[in-house]
């Protein structure tokens, strides 16, 4: 006899279960968690190095790449705590990957956990890792049309960082167009203009992360 079973679950349901476990663990530890997503080379690690110099060991970064420990080394040299996940080909991080490394990590003294996703403007945005917020990074060298061409990340991001603005004199990137498109996708996103080379905008970004950590600890 055949029986029809109503499931009504998201394809990511098993991932989402683990993401909720992660979220509880982070809440119990009293830390703010963001999932930072961009295409490769937008400057995610450079932004986190700048943050690491200010925050030291109160910043923990879990950084995902296909291979190498290079980002972990850079982040530790900047003063942050760092864990490297080598996905060996997978184009995004999953909640399981985060769970498997976090359970071995002391979170004592950590105020902010940044999950630096695999460089990819598409897949990572659809996986919940247990974060409070997703943050998008877009560098001006990539082109101002990227938000409208790759909307799935920008529509979910609580903040968008436009990076490498020191390069604006050398590239054809219309900041107002990019910001207008981001607003059309996501009226609530905070937008930051940043240069890790000149340091412009880093203070405002650090204040934003301060607000996130204060909100969790309040």
């Amino acid at each position, binding site marked *: 006899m055949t*029986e029809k079973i109503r499931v*009504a679950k998201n*394809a990511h349901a098993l991932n989402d279960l683990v993401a909720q476990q992660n979220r509880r663990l982070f809440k119990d530890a009293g830390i703010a968690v963001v999932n930072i997503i961009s295409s490769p080379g937008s400057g995610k690690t450079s932004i986190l190095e700048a943050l690491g110099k200010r925050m030291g060991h109160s910043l923990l970064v879990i950084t995902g790449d296909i291979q190498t420990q290079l980002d972990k080394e850079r982040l530790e040299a900047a003063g942050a705590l760092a864990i490297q996940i080598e996905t060996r080909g997978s184009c995004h991080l999953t909640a399981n990957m985060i769970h498997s490394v976090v359970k071995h990590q002391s979170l004592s003294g950590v105020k902010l956990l940044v999950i630096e996703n695999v460089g990819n403007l598409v897949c990572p945005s659809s996986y919940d890792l247990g974060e409070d917020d997703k943050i998008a990074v877009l560098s001006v060298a990539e082109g101002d049309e990227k938000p409208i061409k790759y909307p799935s990340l920008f529509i979910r991001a609580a903040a968008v960082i436009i990076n490498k603005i020191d390069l604006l004199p050398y590239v054809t990137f219309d900041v107002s167009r990019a910001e207008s498109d981001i607003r059309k996708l996501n009226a609530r996103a905070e937008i930051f203009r940043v240069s890790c080379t000149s340091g412009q905008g880093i203070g405002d970004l650090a204040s934003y992360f301060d607000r996130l950590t204060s909100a969790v600890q309040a």
Partner: protein
Amino acid sequence: MHEYSVACEIAALVKHTARGARVIKITLGVGALSGIFTESLRMYLELALPEAGLDNVAIETKDVPATFLCSCTEQYTSDKFTAACPKCSGYQRTIVSGQDCMVESIEVDDD
């Protein structure tokens, strides 16, 4: 590439739900804004389901339109993330549905 990951997740979810019963058919609802290319997902499910020990499973897919709710209270559908509100032309809206790829139901043989 991405659809293969999703196909493996669906296969695991279906297997978990069936609890050992033989699965005959699965019905999926693919949201217009889910980022899933339906034909690609079907192709990968034909690999991922047998890999999970689920053979000869019929796959039905339904297209689910995206629904937006505007701050002006207008509700509207579109297959574009950038669709402005047709009533007030604004962008102060939230996506109510159409971002997910759902496993709606499965059919199992109890014998």
